[in-house]
Every structure is written in C-alpha cells, then in structure tokens.
C-alpha cells in the first residue's frame, strides 16, 4: 500500500484547471495563491502535447499582475527583456551562421574546451541551476560535470517512496507513485532532455549537457579553467559548485577492517538503495546507526519489511529519541514510540564502541556494555560536504558549519557560486548556515542560476523540509529547527481523520488541499480547574497534530507543522516577518490546527 501522504502538495485554484494537462513542474509543487514558490518538492513532470490551447488557457487564467512595479524592479526586468530580445537576435544570427560553419559532427571534440556555464556536480542543486539559467538566458549552453554515472535525480524517494512501491521491479524502474496516484521517475528529466556533450557548443538553441562519471579535480580561479580526473580541461565564464556531500562513517567502523566494511552501507545514492533493497531480502537482521532524518526514514521503511518478512530491524543512536536534534524532547520521545510501532527495535542512548565480525555475523559493542548482533549495518551519521576543490581554487571553507563559505547571494568569488549541501551561506533572516535538505537544493540552485545570469538576489525565500515516519506521523518544517532552542508547541488532539493517510484516502486521489473532508471537532482536553502550577503532561499524552515554534529570544526562527499540511505559506511568512511575539498561542491560531 503506497503511502500517499509521503508527498504532500497543494495546488492553486488555477492549477486545478489544468490538473490533467500535466503542465506541472519537475522539481517543485506549486503552492496556493499567486503561483508562488513551492512547498513540497516532488511532483510529476512532463508537458502536454497539445500545448498550444492548454497553455493559452493557463496563461489567461493563471496570470497574476501584482500592481505597478517599483522603479528598481521595472528597471531590472526591462534589462532582462532587452537582454532577452538581444539574445534572441544573436541566436537567429548564429543559426544562420551554423549553416555556413564547417564544423561537422564527426570533427567535434568529445568534451568542449569552453562552456559559458559550468556546473560542477550533477545533483538537485545543479539541475535547478541549469533550469534557472536556461529560463533566464535564451540559448544558454550549460555543462554539468558529475562524478555520478547517473543523470540528475532526486534523493528523497530513495529513503521513502521507493521502499513502499508495489512494483517488484522498482529497483530497476526507480519510479514511485506520488500523492495523486501519478507515477514518476526519480530522474528529473529523461535522457532526451539533455544535449549530447559534444554537441553543446553547436546546437542551435543551446541546452543542458551532462558529462557523467567524471570528477573535477582542480580549479584555476584566475584562469577560469577546471581540470578533470582524466586530464581534460574546460574553461568557463560562470561556474557553480554543487558538489554536495559524502556520507560520514563512524570511526569505530573505519577501524574495523574490511570484513566489517563489506557488511556496511553508507546510504546516499541510487546504488546504495539497490544494494540495501537486495540485502534486506537476504539477511535476517539489519542495524541502522543514526537517529536523524535518514536513519529514521530507513528504519521505518525497513520496519515495514520486518513485519512482512521477518526481518529484524534495529536502530541505535546516542540521543534520547528519534530526531533528538530536531524535535523537542517530549516530541522526540513520542516519535520514538511511533517508530517502534513500525516494527523497529529502537535503542536510544547507544554509542558504538567497536564493531567486529563474529562467525558470519557482526557484533556491535556499545560503550555502556550492551551488545548487538546483526548481519548488516546502515550508517546514517551525517554528511561531509565535498570541499576538495577549495584548495586548488583558493576558496574559503567554513569552520563552523563546513562547506564553501559564500555570501548572501551564494557567491564565493567573482564568477563562482555554490549551492546545495556544500554551500555555507549567509541567510539575512537567520544568519549563516548550511542546509542539507532537498528543497534547499532546489531553492539555492535556482537562486544561483538567477545570480549567474545577473539577478544579484540574496537568499530570501526560505526553503522547507519534511519527513514521514510511517503512515501516521508526518511533518513539514521551515527555518532553524534545532532542539536546543526553546520551543512552544501548540497541539490539538488528533482524530482518526487527521493522519496523512486518512486525509488522502477520504478524498480519493484528490489533492489534500482541495479535500472536502469535513473537519470534525477534535476531542477537547479540558482540566476543570486551571492550575497556576505547570504540571508534567500525563503519560500517553497524544501529540496528534499541532505547530511547534522554535525561538531565539521572542522571535520565531523555526516552525514544525506537526501532522498538519498545506500551511507552509503562513509559516514562511511568520519567519520572514521576524517579529517578537509574546503569546505564541495567538500565533498558532493562524494555522487552523483543528481543521483539515
């Protein structure tokens, strides 16, 4: 049974009109109202064939004119338009020249020696940047150089949707069902979207080419030229570094030797998913080390298999509960119980001391003396940003957060930007930070692409993230969601109708934001007398749904939407405002937590 909750979305009323017309983004989902930017970042892709009339209808209905432009905005856009028209003229001239050019396809070098836009890394941030550049700069030629053999794809389904697929061939197809029942691939675009690398300088209207399986090993910032692992050199006009990160390993495991390493998965890529999926069918026991997003999601995914196939799934981590660094303690504890109900043997407060092979199995020894016997280990203990190029490029690496240090406009140096997991950037509202979530890769990649084509905009639109822990617990979040901050959580008691699974089931394949589900009054918690002395919540208190505010002084810097959906715009607004609030229950009212 696919968990339709795993991808939440909402569409504007105008989107409803062309719901079936497949005029939908490959990276993001629209949010309500003025066709602004996304909440969850997974949706179907592809474009209608009968584009003409559908698009006319779309534009007529979907256009939003928001008043007269300020001088600054008008001037910038006027320049954009002029650049647009001048580029179109250039392309027309160039295409005429092409007919006269002697450059026959056979004579083209395998890799161009120069590209206007070079993107180092082939993940989500790079793809978002490529799309942004192409949208803003007509005829742009963009080269992505990726160490990965795969074309750009999205990671979240690797630890969520793909595990819940009914398709026995899912490890080959890498397709999953979205909230609306529509299937899509984890790849952002099929191969036909991309231009062959050797044709990139010559193709009439430019395009995006992906050079797979090649690593950039040296960067000469003065000469604007990079060198690949095979010695190839490519010069560029503008460059984006979107190298992402590599999974961290535990020192105890690194010391342990090859026999242990062979029974270890450091989960990040498609091949890790394929390998772990196969292993999960072959072994009797898997232990996940790590209690954060990835570890908990994988634990729940494997826990599902535990029940159907008799696989033992253990999850161990140093914190007191799942998501211990993200959720306040009471919620982390509650979440841990939920994960246990998904079939996982959760062992909190567990620090690994050593790992060894014992017979044909692994023996994990914890610092407190406990021992765990298992067949395979998945380590989900964090991400190390890939900053190897910093040395040759002379770029600064941040000592607090890791990653390349860039300014608010994601720029490291002239002509060099950084986006995605590897970027340590200045967030005007929240301060310097580095974010390892999918939507941030999309948002920062797009922003970098805009700035590489002259926009000079700072990071402003807050990215969000989400997680699901089985069909009954899901949340979306935005901003600084750090459990060390003081929090205020406002909850309503959940009824059966409030879980993500039931919300979508009740409305069939309908979009949850459009769901006609009547909101039932939630059962009311009342104490007949109001005691001025704060009491500890009773055992088994039900944190079914609500909103949690994370505070710095009295300012809300982070928000978790707990089992309530389609409220991201108001959450984003509150963080953007940066106002001091005395009574957060009043702020919570804005979220309508009692209704669906």
């Amino acid at each position, binding site marked *: 049974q696919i968990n339709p909750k795993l991808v939440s979305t909402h569409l504007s009323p105008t989107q409803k009109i062309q719901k079936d017309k497949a005029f939908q*983004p490959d990276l993001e989902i*629209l949010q309500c109202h003025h*066709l602004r930017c996304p909440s969850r970042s997974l949706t179907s892709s592809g*474009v*209608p064939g009968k584009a003409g009339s559908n698009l006319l209808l779309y534009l007529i209905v979907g256009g939003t004119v928001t008043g007269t432009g300020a001088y600054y905005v008008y001037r910038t856009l006027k320049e954009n338009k002029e650049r647009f028209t001048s580029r179109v003229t250039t392309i027309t001239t160039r295409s005429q020249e092409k007919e006269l050019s002697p450059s026959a396809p056979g004579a083209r070098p395998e890799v161009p020696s120069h590209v206007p836009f070079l993107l180092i890394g082939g993940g989500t941030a790079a793809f978002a940047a490529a799309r942004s550049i192409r949208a803003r700069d007509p005829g742009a030629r963009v080269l992505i150089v990726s160490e990965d053999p795969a074309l750009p794809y999205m990671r979240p389904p690797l630890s969520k949707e793909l595990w819940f697929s009914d398709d026995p061939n899912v490890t080959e197809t890498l397709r999953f069902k979205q909230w609306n029942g529509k299937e899509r691939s984890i790849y952002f675009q099929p191969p036909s979207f991309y231009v062959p690398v050797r044709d990139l300088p010559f193709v009439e209207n430019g395009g995006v080419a992906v050079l797979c399986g090649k690593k950039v090993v040296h960067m000469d910032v003065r000469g604007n030229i990079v060198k690949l692992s095979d010695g190839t050199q490519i010069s560029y006009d503008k460059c984006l570094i979107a190298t992402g990160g590599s999974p961290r390993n535990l020192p105890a495991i690194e010391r342990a030797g090859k026999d242990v390493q062979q029974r270890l998965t450091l989960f990040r890529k498609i091949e890790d998913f394929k390998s772990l999926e196969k292993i999960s069918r072959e072994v009797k026991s898997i232990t996940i080390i790590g209690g954060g997003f990835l570890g908990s999601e994988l634990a729940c995914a494997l826990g599902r298999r535990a029940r159907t196939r008799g696989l033992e799934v253990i999850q161990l981590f140093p914190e007191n509960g799942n998501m211990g660094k993200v959720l306040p303690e009471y919620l982390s504890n509650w979440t841990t119980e939920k994960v246990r109900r998904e079939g996982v043997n959760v062992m909190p407060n567990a620090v690994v001391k050593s790992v060894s092979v014992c017979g044909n199995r692994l023996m994990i020894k914890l610092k407190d003396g406990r021992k765990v016997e298992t067949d395979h280990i998945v380590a989900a203990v964090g991400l190390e940003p890939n900053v190897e190029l910093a040395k040759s490029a002379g770029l600064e690496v941040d000592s607090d957060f890791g990653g390349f240090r860039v300014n608010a406009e994601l720029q490291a140096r002239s002509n060099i930007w950084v986006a995605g997991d590897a970027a340590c950037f200045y967030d005007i509202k929240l301060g310097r930070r580095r974010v390892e979530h999918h939507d941030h890769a999309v948002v920062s990649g797009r922003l970098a692409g805009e700035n590489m084509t002259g926009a000079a905009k700072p990071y402003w*639109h807050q990215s969000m993230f989400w997680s699901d822990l089985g069909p009954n617990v899901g949340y979306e979040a935005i901003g600084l969601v750090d459990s060390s901050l003081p929090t205020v959580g406002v909850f309503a008691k959940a009824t059966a109708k409030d879980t993500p699974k039931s919300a979508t089931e009740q409305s069939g394949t309908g979009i949850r934001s459009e769901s006609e589900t009547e909101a039932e009054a939630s059962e*009311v*918690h009342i104490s007949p007398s109001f005691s001025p002395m704060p*009491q500890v919540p009773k055992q088994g208190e039900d944190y079914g749904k609500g909103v949690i505010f994370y505070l710095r002084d009295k300012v809300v810097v982070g928000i978790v939407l707990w089992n309530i959906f389609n409220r991201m715009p108001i959450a984003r607004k509150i963080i953007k405002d940066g106002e001091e609030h005395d009574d957060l229950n009043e702020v919570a009212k804005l979220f309508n937590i009692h209704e669906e």
Partner: protein
Amino acid sequence: MTPPVSAFSELLLVVSYMVGKDRIIFATKEDHETPSSAELVADDPDDPYEEQGLILPNGDINWNCPCLGGMASGPCGEQFKSAFSCFHYSTEEIKGSDCVDQFRAMQECMQKYPDLYPQEDENEEKEKSSKDLEATPMEASAAKEEKGSS
C-alpha cells in the same frame, strides 16, 4: 475520562505545561476560533527579493516560475518562449491569433521529443490517475504501452 465539552464551556481554557525549556500547549477548537491577536507585517508586492509568480509586476513573463516546469528550459524552450511571448503581448482581438507560426514551430519541436512532451489525445486527458506523464530513461516505449493499464 475527559468531561464533555458543553458542561465546561465556561471553563474552556488553554492548558499549558513546561517541560524544561519547552512549553506545551493544548488548545481547544473553541479557543482557536477566537480571532488571533498576532500581528503580521504587511507584504510589499514590489519586493524585489520575493519569488515571483508567472507574471511579473511589470507584466512580463517570469520564465523561471516553477509553475512552468521544464518548459522554458528544455530542448523546445526557445520555441515555447517565443510562442508564449507572442501570445502574451498580442493585442489582436482574438489574442494570440497572430502567433500561429510560433505555436506551430513549438508543436513541431515538441513532436521530436515524445517522452518529454507526451502527445495526449482528448480521451486520455479525461482519465485521471492512470496516465504516465513521463517515461523513464530505461523504458520509454514500455511505459507508453502501460499507460492505459496502470
């Protein structure tokens, strides 16, 4: 057991606990139905930093709108932009009637990339969830065959 709502409606309150540094509030539906006293800052519609929708404040098309997906950036991006710009700025009585050539060029381009721009007919558009809008790299043709049966 919690008492029924009606018997204690005068005593409906927000119940609040502190657990260390974290405050937990259980709020009733009735409490949240009263208007919020929280103040929000008025938005500036001309804020240059804000993400824009499909149409920019000055009336131009925002090609980078996420709503356009890959349309403006794919292999037929230029044809798409050309057709759409023409339509957008068209002042004909039947808007866009002077843009037939551009739309035809766009159609012709899109037909060359069937797995990017699937050619749907009217009947298929009416089917809701069985459509496969995007083929995988591995099985472009197989997916099309499966379209009706998924």
